[in-house]
């Protein structure tokens, strides 16, 4: 036998990253959205009268607070490759639960707790049907979207519960002293930090990404796929209920039709923020920027007396662009690579592409391989 397998004496060393830190931090889809938010804000502040006023920022944040809250668990659900369309109906349901119990004489904190529990149960029902029964989340949550909304409207009819104590309604619209920033943003920031850490820096979060990228490989690596998804749906229901309580107090009115259609704004913002609808990819700061982008645009256009249907058209167009842009970019890159290849083959030199092209091209070629399978 010859020296068949060379003795392994060398210890390999590895580069941790293929790109320097500033490229990894800033040359991302998420940072592009953050940059867009800043740019749109500056442009709007210059062009739209009154937009730069602090009060505009206050109302903007009050308006998007519910979307921001619900987007946190929604981001994780979409990263696992699932979706929760029932969130706005849970907002309505929790609003009704909160209002009815208050009307029945429950103390406010207890009514809030009951509304949160109702949201958690709603989320558990979604999660149970998706993970234990094994139905697709799209179908399940379209069903519960109608079911929860129907329950909410059924309990309270077309009437509304009003007359919440001023201390509570004022709290919902109060500002952090000395700033134009609503107090509810404190709640959001605390939750956002928790969700960001869980998603990006815990074993649970690694599992979330793994499920979205390949649920089978995740299962073979000991990730508890079903349990993870069930927990996310419960979190989604609970946070939607929290948003429902905020919504009720902010407008001082508990109604069954509160927040109708809000799920579309949430999902639009999440996708705009760089989360892949196919799962496995996304980051929370991009999603938060996505919510702000939609909120700032809507607010600025409203101030500029643009009608709401035009605002919808603009938001919708943005969403479509954001969903197709990764594919368009990949297509453009491969087309460019092809052209370059042709040119160089005509010149007779072998094509060795520049090293800095490595990472942007890698996903494109991976997609091609997938198609080839």
């Amino acid at each position, binding site marked *: 036998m010859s020296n068949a397998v060379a003795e392994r004496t060398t210890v390999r060393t590895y580069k941790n990253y293929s790109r320097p830190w500033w490229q990894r931090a800033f040359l991302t889809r998420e940072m592009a959205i953050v940059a867009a938010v800043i740019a749109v804000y500056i442009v709007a502040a210059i062009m739209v009268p009154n937009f730069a006023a602090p009060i505009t920022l206050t109302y903007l944040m009050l308006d998007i607070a519910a979307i921001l809250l619900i987007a946190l668990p929604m981001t994780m659900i979409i990263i696992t490759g699932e979706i929760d369309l029932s969130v706005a109906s849970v907002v309505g349901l929790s609003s009704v639960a909160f209002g009815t119990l208050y009307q029945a004489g429950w103390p406010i904190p207890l009514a809030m707790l009951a509304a949160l529990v109702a949201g958690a149960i709603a989320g558990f029902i979604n999660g149970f049907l998706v993970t234990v029964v094994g139905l697709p989340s799209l179908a399940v949550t379209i069903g519960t979207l109608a079911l929860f909304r129907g329950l909410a409207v059924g309990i309270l009819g077309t009437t509304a519960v009003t007359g919440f104590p001023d201390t509570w309604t004022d709290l919902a619209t109060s500002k952090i002293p000395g700033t134009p920033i609503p107090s509810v943003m404190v709640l959001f920031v605390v939750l956002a930090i928790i969700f960001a850490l869980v998603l990006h*820096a815990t074993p649970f979060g690694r599992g979330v990404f793994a499920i979205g990228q390949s649920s089978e490989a*995740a299962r073979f690596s000991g990730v508890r796929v079903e349990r993870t998804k069930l927990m996310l749906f419960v979190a989604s229901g609970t946070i939607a209920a929290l948003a429902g309580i905020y919504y009720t107090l902010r407008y001082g009115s508990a109604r069954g039709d509160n927040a109708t259609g809000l799920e579309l704004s949430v999902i639009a913002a999440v996708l705009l923020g760089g989360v892949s609808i196919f799962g496995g990819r996304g980051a929370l700061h991009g999603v938060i920027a996505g919510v702000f982008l939609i909120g700032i645009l809507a607010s600025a256009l409203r101030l500029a007396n643009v009608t709401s249907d035009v605002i919808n058209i603009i938001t919708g167009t943005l969403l479509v662009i954001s969903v197709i842009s990764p594919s368009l970019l990949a297509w453009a890159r491969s087309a460019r690579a092809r052209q370059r290849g042709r040119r160089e*083959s005509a010149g007779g030199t072998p*094509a*060795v592409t520049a090293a800095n092209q490595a990472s942007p091209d890698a*996903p494109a070629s991976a997609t091609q391989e997938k198609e080839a399978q």
Partner: protein
Amino acid sequence: MSTHVPTSQSTPALLLEGVSKSFGSVVALKSGSLRMESHSIHALIGENGAGKSTLVKIIAGVHQRDAGTLEFAGESVDFSNTAQSKDAGIAVIYQEPTLFPDLSVTENIFMGRQPTKGFRGIDRRAMRSQVKELFSQLGVNLDPDRPTRGLSIADQQIVEIAKAISLDARVLIMDEPTAALSGVEVERLFKVARSLRDEGRALLFISHRFDEVFDLCDTVTIMRDGEYVATTPIEDTSVDDLVRQMVGRDVSTLFPKEPAEIGDEVLVVDGLNQRGLFHDVSFSVRSGEIVALAGLVGAGRSEIARAVFGVDDYESGSVSVNGTQLRKHNPAAAMNAGIALVPEDRRNQGVILESSVARNTTLAIRRALTRWGLLWPAAENKAAATWASRLEVKTSALDAQVGTLSGGNQQKVVLAKWLATDPKVLIVDEPTRGIDIGTKSEVHRDLSKLAGQGLAIIMISSELPEVLGMADRVLVVHEGRITAEIDRADATPESVMFAATHSKEVAA
């Protein structure tokens, strides 16, 4: 390195010269050359990462070459997608066929070009009779009306071949078609391949199994590190020559297990049952021991492994590690007890192709890496680098996507992921399938070393030399039952094959 291809007077069916392809900074193919003749079966061999798959994908139009010439039937061609190469008469049959599982065999063969009759309706009768004719021409017996779901891989390949012939493909490329086939199925495939050659078609056969290359092929082209090495008539070469040309050095194809101290029973499987898959499976594995599960593909070996690891459920029986019975259908419990499974389907079950080397390597140990409940990049990268280095994973950086690595390196990432968990029982399912010879012996050596360190190892393998070289004991599985237990000393190709093909119970 010369890229000269032996020329002859006739026009080749397919000719590639100096073809190159890069993905970003990764050069997948430096200079690929290939000359395929009609009436001939051509073998393409080379280690993993030698550029075979890239070459095939360029021929198929999946990738576009950066440089070089591609001629089909004497004319220069550019395929910008797979439809164009198909139309030209090139068919590629991949290792895992891509059929529509819910459509019938006939519908799959005619997908997208169904014969029609009045009012543009599909002429089912014509389709059916053409398929029957195709199957009789190929000498195979398949029901044209059954859905392709549930067909064996071998039968699915036959459907793909039938599809190619109905398109009148002049060039047929088979990328490792035998990797998942049993002996009988390989024979049938070869019969079909020979009859296609005799009809005048040109066939390309990619394989890691030399006996098959010598059995089937007329000419062989060797590639190494993305470059063309040589083309020789099969009768002018030998296994030793081919291996030398493939790896550029001498390699013993097998690394025999070194003697290790056999300790106590670590894993005990008792009376495992799952209807339709396996029955009354009982065995144990001691520390330091490598037990091979041998048998035909489809005998139930992988299913047993999956049930032991808890990915799949079982109806009755028990699995215990060091005397503690495991909760069934719970991979996390199996992992905590010290079981690791390197699964059969590397691309779908072993690694997450979209994810980085570091994330893949640390996925199974992510809970142990936390400090104050959080994962810190430095700790993750350090653990990943340690294990990647221990297994000599070749990658540009730890954040490179695993999908960009070669098959052998992907397998090393899977091994690294599981060895990082410090397992007591390691189950490896076809650990060297589709892996080049150099990496193969590295994997064998790693397994031997791990056994020496006191691991209990279960190895599932369809390659007899691997089973005989590595195993202390061979358990032969036939139709979901363990039909024989053969000690290393008594294990011969004949004894194992006999047990694998005969259902008669042999007392263990």
